[in-house]
């Protein structure tokens, strides 16, 4: 599927279509995860009719891949109405949820509406660790129960395990739990600053020594952890750094458009402008699209380029979208070390 998917993404980029959109329906949440970057207060979410209008606009603009996320999206009482509407517009829908509110009847509705994947965040196989991160007693048990409901409907479930200092040793347990539940598993060591720029959360990032352990873990390579691509050749220096703003974008619960969920550059608001106008004419998106690998003053000449999955959004949050992202620099260095270790073993 990957080469066909590459073809589709390439075609979308060529046609400048927003084929992939991450849409946070709410920032409200019933968990209070220690690493979360969101402000959970409701500052005026899009109404049901506003969301439907945006979905109409996205379908007309060519969006196929649609991620509904939050916050906890099931806190919206109109969630199923919006999901049904999105599916009637023939979007490919994935959900990201903590699953606390998903009961058997909800799993049946999700299945019947043709959702392709449900991603559930699990931080540890040990309730005391998971619940301490979510700050909700019993949350691990409830999420696992929901995953069982979803799997009983034949749905594809992806367990996402965000790694931080609190749970760094637990990923093998989560991986085993995923296997037991028949779910897929992915690891993510990315901790980002809060959306208001507060960088205090970065203290939760796992230490380099643990990152090295993850990147040399044979049970993860190629599945939960994807090795970075090889070094870009000279021709690739004219390529865009990633799909953010080119074939993908993010919509906030207030109608703000960003290039990506991890790239909070305000590029327009759907309460004031039509999506097509923002997508085609936003100065911010135009600036993002103008950047090529060769324009990155530090990264284009970096010796670790072949190990790097540089995120321009993380770089932006550090102050310069053309600059390096320190988290990715650290990961690249550790990947290089891991590569050497794997080659000598």
């Amino acid at each position, binding site marked *: *599927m990957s080469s*066909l*998917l590459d*073809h*589709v993404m390439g*075609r*979308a980029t060529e*046609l*400048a*279509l927003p*084929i992939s959109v991450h849409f946070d329906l709410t920032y409200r949440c019933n968990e209070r995860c220690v690493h979360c970057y969101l402000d959970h207060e409701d500052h005026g979410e899009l109404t049901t009719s506003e969301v439907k209008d945006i979905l109409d606009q996205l*379908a*007309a*603009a*060519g*969006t*196929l891949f649609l991620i509904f996320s939050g916050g906890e999206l099931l806190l919206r009482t109109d969630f199923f109405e919006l999901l049904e509407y999105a599916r*009637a*517009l*023939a*979007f*490919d*829908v994935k959900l990201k949820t903590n699953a606390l509110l998903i009961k058997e009847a909800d799993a049946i509705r999700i299945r019947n509406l*043709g*959702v*392709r*994947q449900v991603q559930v965040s699990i931080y540890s196989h040990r309730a005391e660790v998971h619940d301490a991160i979510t700050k909700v007693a019993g949350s691990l048990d409830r999420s696992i129960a929901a995953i069982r409901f979803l799997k009983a409907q*034949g749905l*594809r479930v992806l367990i996402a395990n965000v790694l931080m200092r609190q749970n760094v040793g637990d990923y093998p347990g989560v991986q085993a739990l995923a296997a037991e539940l028949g779910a897929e598993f992915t690891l993510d060591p990315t901790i980002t600053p809060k959306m208001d720029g507060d960088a205090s959360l970065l203290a939760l990032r796992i230490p380099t020594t643990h990152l090295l352990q993850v990147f040399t873990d044979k049970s993860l390579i190629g599945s939960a952890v994807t090795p970075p691509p090889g070094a870009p050749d000279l021709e690739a220096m004219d390529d865009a750094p990633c799909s953010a703003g080119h074939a993908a974008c993010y919509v906030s619960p207030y109608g703000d458009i960003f290039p990506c969920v991890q790239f909070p550059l305000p590029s327009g608001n759907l309460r004031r402008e039509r999506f097509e106008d923002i997508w085609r004419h936003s100065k911010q998106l135009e600036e993002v699209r103008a950047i090529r690998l060769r324009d990155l003053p530090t990264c284009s000449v970096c010796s670790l380029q072949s190990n790097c999955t540089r995120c321009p959004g993380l770089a932006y949050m550090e102050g310069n979208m053309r600059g390096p992202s320190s988290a990715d620099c650290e990961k690249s260095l550790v990947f290089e070390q891991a590569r050497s270790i794997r080659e000598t073993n």
Partner: protein
Amino acid sequence: MTDLYIARGQRLAARVLATETVILKADDSGLYVLNEVGTVLWGAADGTTPLATIVERLICPQFDVDGASALQDATEFVRELGEHNILSVSDRPMTGLDAAPAADEAAS
């Protein structure tokens, strides 16, 4: 030859990108890309228009092909898509309840 009727399958996501149609199956994440001719067939797969009529009215004039061989090729093509549950293929018209929504056309 018996008239055939085609309708878009269920539990699919789809979008027309210029001359191609991208289709994704919810059940197994199968990804399909239809070419220009396939895109015309997909767009016309309303469950009630006979395949022969679709070929005669849309395929032949647009692609400048002979009717008989075009219908034969189209028949093979829709049967193959039927095997993948991308299209429902029937020798009787299908109601709207059988058909999935059409994909919006983008960037044409």
